[in-house]
């Protein structure tokens, strides 16, 4: 037997938050797995260039902004001194610690890890272009494609050092004096928040009429208010039609919806207009795997592609492009590979925007309900009525429940405010458990916490909220 592995039971292409949990669970269930990824350790974009480093930086941003606000409480820190190298270094160490940990977990489970990029030669064979340069053929019983996504590029923009994407921005090359964020979605706003806290004058330009298109307006409104004080300018209903590299930065040409044209100069431009699935260059044409027009690999509820022995999970398999969705899919597929009857059919997938204040939602949104004509009752609890919010000096928040008016089932939850990301998990559980508003109302939530706002929203549904007077006709 050669010491080069050339066949495997399961080949998992991509070791991000979809690939590695799939591999780990499959190994735990007794399946022989080969995990293929270009990085040294598992982690994918999430660990190396996305979720983790951005949240690390956002934590730093939060510390800076909170200390700034502390003057309200009579605590004055003065202007902070920021050592960018140290900050970058800390962020890198956080990432390293985590990915190395994953590498360990992978070894403990006896998973064969191949560092390289894989392509399909046919439905049962991969060619892996390894890090060192050589290539190796690997035949497999079944495969899981977890190749993730990459930042979308606007082709008309020039290639320039001044134009950043989410990956390069996270590297914190420098704290620019001015920066334009193109795209008012969650990535742009999160990174914009980081740079703004570090001292950059950040402007945001968004094509639609509001930030975070698609998210319920009542939640975004709270964020927008705070954004207005963080950002230099929020430009809505406007497109970027050209970027020109000049001696002292970049000149950006705008075109607003009503036809107006303007130009401004910025040191840096961060392009965050979305992400594209990585389904090209994989040799899929040598298999029966089909891809849709947007580039997502077509899968059924088992995450099986049109080629029966090949599965696809994560960003490459469709929206929402969220790490936790990839993880769940990965685990479902691992179970299926182990012969269990499993399927990806969650009733609620949460989403969190880690701006300040945070926004989080899960299940049916108010906008969706309106769009699909689903009758719902929305029970809102303003944080102005929350004791805990008052103690945090952060009354800018709202918690709302979207409830079926007849069955009283909780269909969705939306929260805006600091810590929304942590609070939303209760909503996911409630929806998955088919809980009724009364189940939440009758569960004792600790006081004084922000989680009480969830319970009180349920009380609002019945018109009997302790801290909000809004009587209902009949229960």
């Amino acid at each position, binding site marked *: 037997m050669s010491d080069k592995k050339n066949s495997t039971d399961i080949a998992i292409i991509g070791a991000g938050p979809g690939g590695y949990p799939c591999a780990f669970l499959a190994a735990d269930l007794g399946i022989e797995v080969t995990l293929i990824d270009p990085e040294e350790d598992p982690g994918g974009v999430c660990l190396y260039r996305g979720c983790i480093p951005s949240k690390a930086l956002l934590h730093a941003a939060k510390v800076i902004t909170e200390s700034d606000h502390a003057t309200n409480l009579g605590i004055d820190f003065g202007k902070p001194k920021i050592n960018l190298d140290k900050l970058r270094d800390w962020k890198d160490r956080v990432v390293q610690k985590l990915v190395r940990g994953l590498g360990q977990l992978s070894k403990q489970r006896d998973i064969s890890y191949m560092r390289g990029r894989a392509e399909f030669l046919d439905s049962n064979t991969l060619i892996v272009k390894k890090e060192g340069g050589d290539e190796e053929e690997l035949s497999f019983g079944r495969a899981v494609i977890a190749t993730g996504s990459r930042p979308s590029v606007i082709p008309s923009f020039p290639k320039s050092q001044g134009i950043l994407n989410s990956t390069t921005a996270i590297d914190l090359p420098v704290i620019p004096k001015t920066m334009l964020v193109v795209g008012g979605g969650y990535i742009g706003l999160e990174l914009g928040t980081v740079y703004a806290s570090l001292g950059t004058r950040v402007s945001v330009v968004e094509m639609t009429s509001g930030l975070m298109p698609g998210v319920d307006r009542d939640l975004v409104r709270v964020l927008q208010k705070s954004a207005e004080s963080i950002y230099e300018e929020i430009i809505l209903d406007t497109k970027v039609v050209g970027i020109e590299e000049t001696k002292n930065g970049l000149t950006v040409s705008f075109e607003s919806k009503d036809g107006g044209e303007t130009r401004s100069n910025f040191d840096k431009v961060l392009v965050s207009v979305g992400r594209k699935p990585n389904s090209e260059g994989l040799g899929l044409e040598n298999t029966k795997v089909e891809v849709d027009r947007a580039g997502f690999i077509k899968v059924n509820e088992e995450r099986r592609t049109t080629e029966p022995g090949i599965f696809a999970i994560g960003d490459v398999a469709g929206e929402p492009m969220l790490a936790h969705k990839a993880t769940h899919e990965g685990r479902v597929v691992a179970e299926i590979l182990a012969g*269990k*009857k*499993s*399927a990806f*059919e*969650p*009733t609620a997938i949460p989403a969190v925007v880690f701006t300040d204040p945070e926004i989080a939602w899960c299940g049916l949104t108010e906008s969706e309900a309106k769009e699909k004509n*689903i009758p719902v009752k929305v029970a809102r609890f303003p944080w102005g009525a929350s004791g805990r919010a008052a103690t945090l000096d952060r009354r800018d928040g709202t918690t709302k429940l979207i409830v*079926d008016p*007849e*069955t*009283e*089932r909780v*269909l969705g939850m939306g929260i805006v405010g600091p810590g929304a990301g942590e609070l939303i998990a209760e909503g996911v559980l409630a929806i*998955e*458990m*088919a*809980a*009724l508003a*009364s*189940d939440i109302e009758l569960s004792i939530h600790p006081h004084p916490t922000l989680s009480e706002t969830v319970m009180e929203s349920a009380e609002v549904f019945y018109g009997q909220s302790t801290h909000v007077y809004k009587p209902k006709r009949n229960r």
Partner: protein
Amino acid sequence: MTIEYRLPELGEEIDTGDVISVYVSLGDTVSEEQPLMEIETDKAAIEVPSPAAGVIKEIHVADGETIKVGQLLVTIEDGVDGHKNTAVSEGTAQGQTEEPEHKVDEETIEEEIASEPETTPEERINTSSVQEEEEKAEQAQEPQKENIEPQVKEASSQPPPASPSIRRLARELGIDINKVIGTGPGERISEADLKASTGSQKKAKEPEAETPAPGKESQAKTKTRPRSEPGKEERVKMSKVRKLTAERLTEAWKAPHVTQYDKADITELEKLRKQYGSTVGKAGGKLTMTSILIKVVAKTLKEFPEMNASVDMENSEIVYKHYYNIGIAVDTDRGLLVPVVKDAGKKNITELSIELADISERARNKKITANELRGGTFTITNLGGIGGTYFSPVLNAPQVGILGVSRSQTEPVYLEEEFVPRLMLPLSLSYDHRLVDGANAVRFLHSVIERLEEPLSWFLKIN
């Protein structure tokens, strides 16, 4: 059509009630089963539900009024064409028109065949609600009737109300979670609900309603029952009577049954019966072996109190009854009914014959009342008219004795050193061995037989 809704039976020996509150007003649209008013009796306060959906045309009673059973309460216009002047249409295959006064029939059959001696007047059952119960009880997967709509609506607009672990379990068990009816709040599906649905879903494939019901019983289309091979099998929904009989017998069967068989020489008795038949006939009754048996049995029970009792295992007590109500099994086109002749010991055979003829007839014509189907302490079941020699009747719980009678035959009997033709009546006595021991049962049966065989001497002693 117009429905004149009268106050149904409220319970044993309850004839009147007071109207506490009339809920509806003239012109109101009401749905079937919607409470119309609240009535208070000696025993309880009850809500009287509407027999049908429709519009209130007239209200004949007022708050505070004392009303009687059978009294006209409201007139409802239900907008349905028809010549039937009733609200309740029977669900059984042969169900036809009923007079309003006897709407109570369904209820009575229910009550009798159900074991509860106490009735709650709420058992105002009409076709659709009973069907509902039948369906629920059979763990129907699909909502068949409008009343159970919500399930269907929900399934289409929302994922099934089941937690992830339950959804996973369903998948593992091969159950389509969208077809399971949950019994938790908000129709939440529990593990028990899943297990309950496995039975019906085993061979379930898709929709075709394969139960062509003869008659109006099976309005329900079952989507998840095992398919019947067309032409080889046929699925028919049980009638109320059948279902309740089945349930009752399932309960009754729990008692340890022993059947004692014997024959009575009724040659002399038969002569007497023929002789006095016309006399009784003129009085309005029919002198039959059964009516005679009622008297004989009633009197014999007095000497064998054990046979006229019931067993209370929970409290380890025997309940001796000091009244003698003999139930007579009557075969009707709806099924088996057992009207009861009360205080049989106190009535003479002529009276018993008249009463027996009357209740049998009314049982067959659906004119029997709840009271008349209740309260028996012993039962006689006579299949002689149809044939057979012996059979092992099932006790009419909670009674401990039942006497089965088969067809009398002329047989050669060895008497005084020769074979003579005698008319022999086969008797089958089933008893509950928890209370009655074999010896006593035989003694009881022999006593009965003695009296049948020596009618004159017994008649001389009778009081």
